[in-house]
């Protein structure tokens, strides 16, 4: 009898504290009711009881924006809400506006509970946000409230290293790419119809590209052989010289290099200056942005560029005779040579989520986002609703239905996917993308070919790892690099345009040294050392 009373009392206490945890008022901070939570977790199951609403900030993916004004309208979002028992209130700026909107949000201090952004590109990164009191450290609750994601980390130690910070803290909920097909989604692409006119083979090396460009220039003086922004041109040709395609890389001895100081980079710039003077590079490249490049390619005024928009170019020219843009591998100097220091990482290139200090229902937020990493969540967010957007074939694998691939209402695959699958629109849930999503989504042969060709690069030595700097390092690094980046870009563009003779290269290097580039390299080196020690 006494025992029963005791049991009853415990049950009562549990029920009361449980209710307190769910009403979501201010005392449901992480620490309150830890005991009740831990006793719950053993038998926790979705949906989370109670009525929970969290606020969300993140860009509205363009594939969604074309069709509706809110993530809340999508069947997949509704399903996610229903399964997890949590609703999100969306603050979703249009794509391209998210950076400005985020800064306004941060400056105002009215953070949403969940904030999704490409935080690695945010100056100072997650550490700064933590120190500034913007985001929460969720490490201590990972095992308890995010069991599925924790298991994922345990199964993928390399991903775990990328996501956690140098003190082994978890500050974010990642969006992950699972499979190599997802790591090579952009690269060189060119007009196959024009290449046929030249009678040359698809170019594999920089020399072969040069030969093709010269021929194109002869046949079509009005068409720019190589077009794109300055960055596009770097990413097209720079890797051939073994110096990555951005400013930073870590060489095979784990030493940090600033690409724009390297001899390889000088050779690259010299070559580009030569190409420019011979009219092989679009003379307007310095004034271009992404939109203008797309216009140049779509209107047939360019032959080759770098990026992932070939479908857009082809779609704009369906009625235009032979016009066809196809992909090619990133060229090396020698045939068969695989370019190094350019491959992406599973984590970091896509926007990912953080939980802000304004969030009072941390458990709810974490559990909601953990669902995506459960087997059910993984399948649902990658494939949608069974019988509607996908079916399971005899091989036990998921396949999209015609609702997605050949939409009866005439939606493009990307548009149809947006309604049912979050792997493509990369939000509002965070998940691990299944590479088979991409392979099926790229239904046309030239698209599948593109994935293979763009993926033809070195995966042992990848691009610069997702390191994190300390707060002090960050402010010093940002202050140094603000002027250095401006200087490097403007000088390199001028070298290519011929406004600055290449004989001034030594001056350029000296100026960089005077601007204390070595200090910036040291900071990065320290961060890289910590990264590999994780």
């Amino acid at each position, binding site marked *: 009898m006494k025992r029963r009373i005791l049991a009853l009392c415990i049950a009562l206490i549990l029920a009361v504290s449980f209710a307190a945890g769910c009403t979501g008022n201010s005392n449901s901070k992480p620490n309150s009711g830890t005991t009740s939570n831990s006793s719950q977790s053993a038998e926790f199951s979705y949906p989370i009881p109670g009525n929970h609403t969290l606020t969300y900030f993140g860009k509205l993916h363009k594939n969604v924006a074309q069709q509706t004004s809110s993530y809340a309208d999508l069947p997949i979002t509704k399903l996610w809400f229903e399964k997890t028992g949590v609703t999100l209130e969306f603050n979703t700026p249009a794509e391209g506006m998210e950076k400005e909107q985020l800064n306004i949000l941060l400056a105002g201090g009215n953070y949403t509970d969940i904030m999704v952004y490409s935080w690695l590109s945010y100056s100072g990164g997650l550490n700064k946000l933590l120190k500034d009191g913007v985001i929460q450290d969720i490490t201590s609750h990972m095992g308890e409230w995010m069991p599925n994601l924790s298991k994922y980390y345990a199964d993928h130690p390399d991903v775990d290293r990328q996501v956690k910070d140098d003190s082994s803290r978890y500050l974010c909920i990642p969006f992950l790419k699972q499979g190599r097909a997802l790591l090579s989604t952009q690269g060189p692409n060119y007009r196959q119809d024009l290449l046929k006119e030249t009678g040359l083979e698809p170019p594999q090396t920089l020399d072969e590209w040069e030969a093709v460009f010269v021929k194109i220039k002869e046949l079509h003086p009005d068409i720019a052989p190589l077009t794109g922004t300055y960055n596009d041109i770097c990413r097209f040709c720079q890797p051939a010289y073994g110096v990555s395609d951005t400013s930073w890389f870590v060489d095979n001895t784990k030493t940090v290099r600033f690409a724009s100081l390297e001899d390889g980079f000088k050779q690259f710039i010299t070559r580009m200056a030569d190409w420019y003077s011979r009219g092989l590079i679009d003379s307007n490249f310095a004034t271009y942005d992404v939109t203008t490049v797309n216009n140049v390619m779509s209107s047939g005024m360019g032959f080759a560029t770098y990026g992932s928009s070939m479908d857009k170019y082809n779609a704009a020219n369906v009625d235009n005779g032979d016009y066809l843009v196809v992909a090619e591998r990133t060229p090396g100097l020698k045939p068969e040579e695989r370019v190094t220091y350019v491959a992406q990482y599973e984590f970091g290139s896509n926007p990912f989520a953080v939980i802000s200090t304004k969030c009072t229902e941390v458990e709810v937020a974490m559990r909601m986002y953990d669902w995506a990493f459960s087997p059910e969540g993984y399948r649902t967010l990658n494939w949608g609703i069974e019988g509607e957007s996908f079916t399971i074939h005899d091989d036990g694998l998921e396949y999209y239905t015609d609702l997605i691939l050949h939409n009866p209402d005439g939606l493009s695959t990307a548009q149809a996917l947006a309604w049912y699958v979050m792997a493509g629109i990369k939000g509002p849930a965070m998940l691990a993308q299944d590479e088979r999503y991409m392979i099926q989504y790229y239904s046309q042969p030239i698209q599948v070919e593109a994935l293979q060709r763009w993926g033809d690069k070195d995966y042992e030595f990848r691009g610069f790892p997702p390191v994190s700097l300390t707060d002090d390092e960050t402010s010093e690094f940002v202050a140094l690099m603000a002027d250095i980046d*401006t200087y490097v870009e403007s000088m390199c563009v001028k070298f290519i345009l011929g406004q600055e003779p290449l004989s001034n290269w030594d001056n350029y290097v000296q100026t960089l040294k005077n601007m204390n580039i070595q200090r910036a390299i040291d900071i990065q080196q320290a961060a890289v050392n910590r990264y590999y020690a994780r």
Partner: protein
Amino acid sequence: MAKTKTVIGSAAVNRKKPLWVRAKRDVTRNWDLYLIILPILVFYAIFHYAPMYGAIIAFENYKPARGILGSEWVGLENFRTFFGTYYFWTLLRNTLRISFTSLLVHFPTEILLAILINELRSKRFARVVQTVTYMPHFISLVVVCGMVLQFTKSNGIITKLFGMNTPMLNNPNLFLPIYVVSDVWQQVGWGSIIYLAALTSIDQELYEAAEIDGAGRFKQTIYITLPGILPTVTVLFIMRIGKVMSLGSDKVLLLYNEAIYDKADVFATYVYRRGIENTDWSYSSAVGLFNSVINLALVVTANTISRRVNQLSIW
């Protein structure tokens, strides 16, 4: 005219009673006028004076999460960094060069256009010209800059007109002319409206008298029209001087590129890149505050010079 000191906007001074008594009587007597000006005072208080509190962050290492009062105080650190930056002198030179050239070209053209329109005999034609010239003012700046970029690219119409075959905006020396000319094209009509208004207030009898004395059109312009609008010109000029350092970032941002940073990068674009792109709020505020101080100094100087030389001033 030469010896009386003209202070624009000051009321007659009554020194007999204490200020608050006079103020009270003035308000009760002219309550309707005060009512009209009230919204403007409120506007300035809310949108121009209240935000000045935020200028404190120029002396702090500001973190939004900690707020203005909670952030770390760093004194003049941000200013010191700024004056030591590699680009400081480039930015200063560019800002002043673009601003003053713009001012020197822009300012007289507006007056000239107003006088020319004023001289037109056919009032209908004058109205057409006026409308046509101020229309571009209503085109969005983004569109105007888009047009400029199109017209000046390697095969753009203006590039071809000058017989060139590379984009004009790749040439650092052409940025200034392109900036100024497109600015004049867009704003000259709009800017001339205020002078046209000033021109109508000139007594027509002066012209008749001058004509009898044998003055031609040109002499009439020199001796009657220009002195007639001189107060307006002076006031507007002093106010323009006050904007020299805060040269708008929008247009430069839309037109410049890496190849011409040397000649096109100005304080406002630097602030934009550091503040908005690199989220370095405090540093940007310091630069902004520095700009404002220089602007204030310039206005005070211009006003003083004008008062000494012309006996015309804002205060």
